[in-house]
C-alpha cells in the first residue's frame, strides 16, 4: 500500500539554514539534484529549510523520504554520512544545528501519528562551519557533486528512473547568484 494508492513516491528533502554556511548544504545539494536530473511525478525534491511541522503535509503524502542535511559525525569536514530508519531520529535530536528542533519535532509528530515514512534515509556531509554566511566551505563545495550522485543512487534504488539533463542546461542554470537562486529568486 502506498500513500497515494498508486506508484510508491519519494520525497527528497533538503534541510538546513542557507544563511548559516554549511548548514545549508542539504538545500544546496537538493537544488543541484533538481538541475541535474529530470524527475518523474513520483519523485519530489524540495527545499525544507529550517521548517518543522510545516513540512508535515509534504512528508505524510509520501511513501519514502530522503533527508539531505549537514550531519555532525566523526571525520573531517566533507565526510559522507548515510543513516537509515531508526538511526535517523536520534541523530537529528542530539546534534547542534540551526534547525534540529524543527526536524526532531516533525519526526516525533510522525511517530505519534503512526505515520512514519516507509523508508527514511538521511544523507549528508560533516560540515566545516555553521557560522553566518551564504557560502559553502571548500571541503563541502568539493564533495557536493558526489552527494548529488548519492541522492540519485538512493532514488534509483527506491525504484525510480532518473534522466540526466544535458550538461549545458545544468551549467546555464548554475550561473548567476547561487544564493539568490537557492532562495527561489528567479530574476
Amino acid at each position, binding site marked *: 500500500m502506498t500513500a497515494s494508492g498508486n506508484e510508491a513516491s519519494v520525497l527528497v528533502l533538503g534541510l538546513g539554514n542557507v544563511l548559516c554556511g554549511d548548514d545549508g548544504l542539504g538545500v544546496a545539494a537538493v537544488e543541484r539534484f533538481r538541475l541535474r536530473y529530470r524527475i518523474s511525478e513520483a519523485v519530489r525534491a*524540495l*527545499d525544507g529549510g529550517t521548517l518543522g511541522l510545516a513540512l508535515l503535509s509534504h512528508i505524510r503524502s509520501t511513501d519514502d523520504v530522503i533527508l539531505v542535511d549537514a550531519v555532525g559525525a566523526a571525520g573531517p569536514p566533507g565526510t559522507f554520512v548515510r543513516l537509515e530508519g531508526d538511526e535517523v531520529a536520534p541523530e537529528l535530536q542530539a546534534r547542534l544545528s540551526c534547525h534540529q*528542533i524543527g526536524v526532531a519535532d516533525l519526526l516525533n509528530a510522525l511517530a505519534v501519528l503512526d505515520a512514519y515514512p516507509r523508508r527514511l534515509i538521511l544523507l549528508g556531509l560533516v560540515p566545516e562551519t555553521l557560522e553566518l554566511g551564504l557560502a559553502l566551505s571548500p571541503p563541502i563545495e568539493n564533495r557536493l557533486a558526489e552527494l548529488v550522485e548519492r541522492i540519485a543512487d538512493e532514488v534509483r534504488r527506491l525504484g525510480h528512473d532518473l534522466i540526466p539533463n544535458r550538461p549545458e542546461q545544468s551549467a546555464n542554470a548554475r550561473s548567476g547568484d547561487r544564493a539568490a537562486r537557492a532562495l527561489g529568486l528567479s530574476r
Partner: protein
Amino acid sequence: MTRVVIDPITRIEGHLRIETEVDGGVVRDAWSSSTMFRGIETILKGRDPRDAWAFTQRICGVCTTVHAITSIRAVENAIGARPPANARLLRNLIMASQMVQDHVVHFYHLHALDWVDIVSALSADPAATARLAQSISDWPLSSATYFAGVRERVQQFVDRGQLGPFANAYWGHSAYRLPPEANLLAVAHYLEALDWQRDFIRIHAVLGGKNPHLQSFLVGGMATPLDADKQGSLNMTSISMMRKLIREGRAFVEKVYIPDLLAVASFYKDWAGYGAGVGNYLAYGEYPEGDDSNAPLFLPRGVIRSRDLSNVEPMDPAKITEFVTHSWYEYEAGDSEGLHPAAGETRPNYTGPEPPYELLNTDEKYSWLKSPRYDGLSMEVGPLSRMLVAYGSGHSRVQELVNYALGQLGVGPEALFSTLGRVAARGIETLVLAEKMEDWLDELADNMGRGQLDIHDNSMWDPANWPAECSGAGFHEAPRGALGHWVHIVDGEIANYQCVVPSTWNAGPRDAAGQRGPYEEALVGTPVADAEQPIEILRTVHSFDPCMACGVHVVDRAGRELVKVRVQ
C-alpha cells in the same frame, strides 16, 4: 539561594538562556540572554532591496512569512511603492492564517505540556473523559470509544519507550493539577491539532504554490496572478478551497481550542497572579483595512503604560531606541546611549566567558540581544499587548471575548496582566482572526468578480525611479509580537538593515538604566516548588512563546550542576 539556569540548545532564532536566583521557593531575580549572534544585517548589505525578503524569510524556520512581509513593507516604504487592494487582502489572509496556525501549535504542541500531564492521562476513564468533552463542546470526536483509542495509542507509544514529543517534561510534578480526564482530553486534541495545523496552512499552498516556503511575495504587491476563471491563477476554485479551509479552521478554534483553554485555565487560576511583567504594552497593529498609509487597522496600534487600559497612546516609531549596555555590541557614541533602529549599529563585541561556562557575568554584558525601549520604557509585545491595546481602544469583538473569558473563569480584569492572561489572550486573538478571515476572502472574491485584478504597483519596480538615497520602515504584528525592519538604500543597494524582532523586545536584557526586560521582570516572584524541576519558570517563559527551544540546567550557588534536562 539557588541559581536556576535555563540554557538553550537550538538556534531556531538564537539560543535563549535564562538565569534566575531562587530563594525560599520564589524567583528573586532573573536574567535573560541570547547566546548566539544574529547578524542578518551583515548579509544584506550591498544586495538588491527587492530581494531582501527572501533572505530575511530564512532568519527563522518558525516565522518565515513574517520576516518576508515586514521586509517588503520596509522597502515599499523607502521607495514609495503602493501595493493595491488585492495585495493587501492576500497579505492579510497570509498573515492571519500564519497567526492562527502558529497560536494553535503553540498552545497544543509547545505550551500544553507545561500544564498537561501525559502520565496522568493514561489513567483516565474514557467514559468520564467523554462526559467532560461533551459538557464543554459539541465537537463530534468525543465518544468514550474515541478516547479509549487515544489512550491506547499513547500507551503503546510510551510502552515502546519512544516518548518522542513527550520525553522532555516533568511528569508527575506536583504543579500539574488537571484531573486525568482533562489530561486525556488535552492529549487527544494535541494529536488532532497536528493534523489540523497541516490542513489549515494549506491556505498558504493555495496562495503561494507547492514550495514549503511561500514564494509569492513581491515588493509593490504580490506575485499571485488573479483571474476568476483561469487555471494557474488564483481563481474561484481557489477561493472556495480557501473558504472551506477557513471555516474548518474556525470550527476547530471555536469548538476545541477555546473550550480547552478555558477548561485548563480553570484549574490554574493562581497563574493569574504570576508572571505580570513590566506592565507596559506595545502593539504596531495589523491587518490594514484600506490602502492609504494611515488606513485603519483591524487590530489597532498603540501603547499602554503601567497597565492603564483607559489610556491607549498613539505609537510613535521615533520613540523606539535600542540599548547595548548589557549586550555584546558596542556603539560608536558609547554603550550607555540608545540608538534609533534607523541609525542602528551592529558591531559585535563579545566580552562573555569562553564556552562551555557555568554562569554569565550578569553585572556586565550578558546577551546577544539588544534592549529595545519605547520612550525609555521596557515594553511587552505579543498577543497580550495586541488584545489589551484593542480592548482599550474599544474593539468591540475583543472586548466581548475578553469579558466572556474573564466571566467564565470568574476572575477580574487584573487577571489579564499575568502568565494566564498571556495564554488566554493568544486564544482570544486566534478566534477573533479566524472569524475575520472570511471577510477578507469575500472582499477579494468581490474584486475578482468585478474584474479588478491588480496585484502589483509596477511604477516603482525599476531602481532608476528611486531616489539616490532613501530609507524606510516596515511594521508587522507577528504571532510573537511587534516586528520591525528598517532599511537604508543608497544607489539601489542596501546600505544598512536593522531588524527589531519580538523576542528582542520580550527577551532582551537590562538597559542603561538597569530596567529589566519583560521576561526578566515577569519571572520575579514566580514560585518554584522544586528547583530541580523548574516547570513554573518554563510556564511563564513559554507563555511569551519564545521563538526558540531551551535546555534546562539547574546549578546551585557554587555552580555545581545538579540536573540538566532539555525541554521544548
